[in-house]
């Protein structure tokens, strides 16, 4: 006798118990602390903060540990927390010109005011496995310059000559949008697109950016500048009449400089693609700036010929929490719909066999009439 599957509740509870066990792993080993994750897996923490749009290293580290290192799961956990937080207001735009720069490189000039500053980068490391890390060998103290000096932005150098379009400005009276509070609508203004890209999946943006380099919506890019460092976040308080500092966040900014031959409306000049993300992630900031530029087709009267230029395609599919949820929901039961399809396929098979045996079915006859 068939007994319908029961006890979903107990099964779920047991699955979660097993998950907790697997997350903790071998109990004879010490558990990693949140602080250890913050300090030693800092770039994982950065990615979670960036794509969850919540700047809090400890909470992001907790999410990483809770998710067993699954980045998208960690991003998801942190976002589900962020969404419940009240909004007190929106900060003033951060001024990256006053960034305390830890890294700053430009590909467009050999040398420039402020110099090229490599900072903590994987670039030029040889990717050889380092056995000394197995035993936690002592690490040298770094040689660092006193930070502090403001470093001129490369885009400002070009701007001085009038060779590059102005810094992106929204039309007069434009109210800054917020994707997490308003439903999306297309066509979408650049401020909202940038928000979506900043929260978007690093891998997806990387692939799209790469596609523009390989000819699917080519933008002729140069890295004007990538800079990483701390900027102050300020909130304007109407009661006070001036902005107060809320604290400091570490961000990566990329200003991509793109060739533009000019159109009927605009003279030939360089154009910009912009990327800004929480924490240290050049890959993400650079990808974002390439995709941002590719999406600005309407401003430069460019034809949409490639996926990276199609804002509805890019923005609708950039969010990894949405994407993973919908892809993975396919493992939920679908047997009711499948039953309906089974029934249909069986019926069509009967028709097919009848047709091949030469006898027209009733329906086919009717359709032919």
């Amino acid at each position, binding site marked *: *006798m*068939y007994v*319908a*599957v*029961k*006890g*979903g*509740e107990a*099964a*779920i509870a047991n699955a979660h118990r097993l998950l907790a066990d697997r997350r903790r792993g071998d109990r004879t080993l010490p558990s990693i602390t949140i602080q250890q994750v913050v300090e030693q897996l800092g770039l994982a923490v950065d990615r979670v903060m960036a794509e969850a749009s919540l700047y809090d290293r*400890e*909470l992001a580290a*907790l999410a990483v540990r809770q998710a067993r290192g699954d980045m998208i799961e960690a991003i*998801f956990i942190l*976002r*589900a*927390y*962020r*969404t*419940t937080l*009240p909004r007190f207001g929106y900060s003033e735009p951060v001024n990256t010109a006053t960034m305390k720069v830890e890294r700053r490189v430009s590909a467009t000039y050999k040398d420039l005011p402020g110099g090229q500053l490599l900072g903590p980068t994987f670039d030029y490391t040889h990717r050889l496995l380092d056995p000394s890390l197995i035993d936690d060998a002592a690490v040298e103290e770094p040689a660092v310059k006193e930070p502090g000096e403001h470093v001129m932005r490369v885009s400002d150098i070009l701007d001085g000559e009038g060779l590059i379009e102005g810094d992106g400005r929204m039309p007069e009276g434009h109210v800054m949008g917020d994707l*997490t*509070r*308003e*439903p*999306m*609508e*297309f*066509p979408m203004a650049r401020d909202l697109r940038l928000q979506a890209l900043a929260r978007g999946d690093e891998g997806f943006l990387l692939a799209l950016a790469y596609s523009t380099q390989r000819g699917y919506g080519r933008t002729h890019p140069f890295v004007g500048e990538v800079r990483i460092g701390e900027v102050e976040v300020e909130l304007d308080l109407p009661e006070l009449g001036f902005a107060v500092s809320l604290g400091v966040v570490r961000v990566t900014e990329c200003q991509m400089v793109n060739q533009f031959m000019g159109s009927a409306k605009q003279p030939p000049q360089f154009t910009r693609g912009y990327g800004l993300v929480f924490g240290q992630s050049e890959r993400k900031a650079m990808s974002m700036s390439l995709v941002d530029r590719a999406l600005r087709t309407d401003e430069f009267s460019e034809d949409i010929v490639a996926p990276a230029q199609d804002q*509805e395609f890019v923005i*609708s599919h950039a969010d990894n*929490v*949405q994407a*993973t*949820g*919908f*892809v*993975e*929901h396919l493992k*939920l*039961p*679908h*047997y*009711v*719909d499948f*039953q*309906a*399809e*089974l*029934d*249909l396929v069986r*019926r*069509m098979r009967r*028709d097919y066999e009848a047709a091949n045996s030469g006898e027209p*079915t009733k*329906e*086919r006859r*009717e*359709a032919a009439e």
Partner: protein
Amino acid sequence: MNDLATYNFAYLDEQTKRMIRRAILKAIAIPGYQVPFASREMPMPYGWGTGGVQVTASILGPKDVLKVIDQGADDTTNAVSIRAFFQKVADVAVTTKTKEATIIQTRHRIPEEGLREGQTLVYQVPIPEPLRFLEPRETETRKMHALEEYGLMHVKLYEDIARNGHIATTYAYPVKVEGRYVMDPSPTPKFDNPKMHMSEALQLFGAGREKRIYAVPPYTEVVSLDFDDHPFEVQKFDKPCALCGAENVYLDEVVLDDKGGRMFVCSDTDHCEDRRDCGHAGHMLARQEAAE
């Protein structure tokens, strides 16, 4: 960090609930129209009922009695999980009885038992746009709805008939609401479509990932699209339910062994149990009793 994990009644903050209720009211005022809303991240994944959960969270009061079904059953894992979520964050009474529930959240089915006035059926919707697979662009489909331009849908159904002799859509079968908007009934089998027509209950549809809410108010005309010479038909099953003997209900096919053995049982588990409690028995149950 210990004071972090406190959440409002039914998880969502009151401002968010107010925003969602506004969207619901607009949806009720324009039956079948998809109202954009600022869907929130929920603590369950997109595609797992976040839209339905947000709608339920926004209309749920402390005195409500909640029923959650998935594939018609109260005991499928995701239904269990969503029910447990509301017990946890709203401490609300839950039931498996269709009759007793004030709010029923569902995925893929409408209960067999007729709903009555005062009940609300909340559907979880994956893709709210009935025209999506004919036209992938939201900018285009919104225009088509605005202009009541549904020719493409009829062409699709016609092509089905030309190719197969019948309409080959078995679930998420498009309907026209109150003679105006073409609407996706969510991926319920078309068997359930007639239950939506002139339903006494309020029907709300939430699509979280796609950020849309739509509604069918009580006593609203819901007509499945068809042609005069190819009228809409629902699925028919050859046999009654093997456990309760019910006919004209939607059945799940259960594989019994590796020799092609199959049985068909009610997809609506509450309906099936209810009938068995009233003494109805299908052939599998009768055989079981005879063996005892």
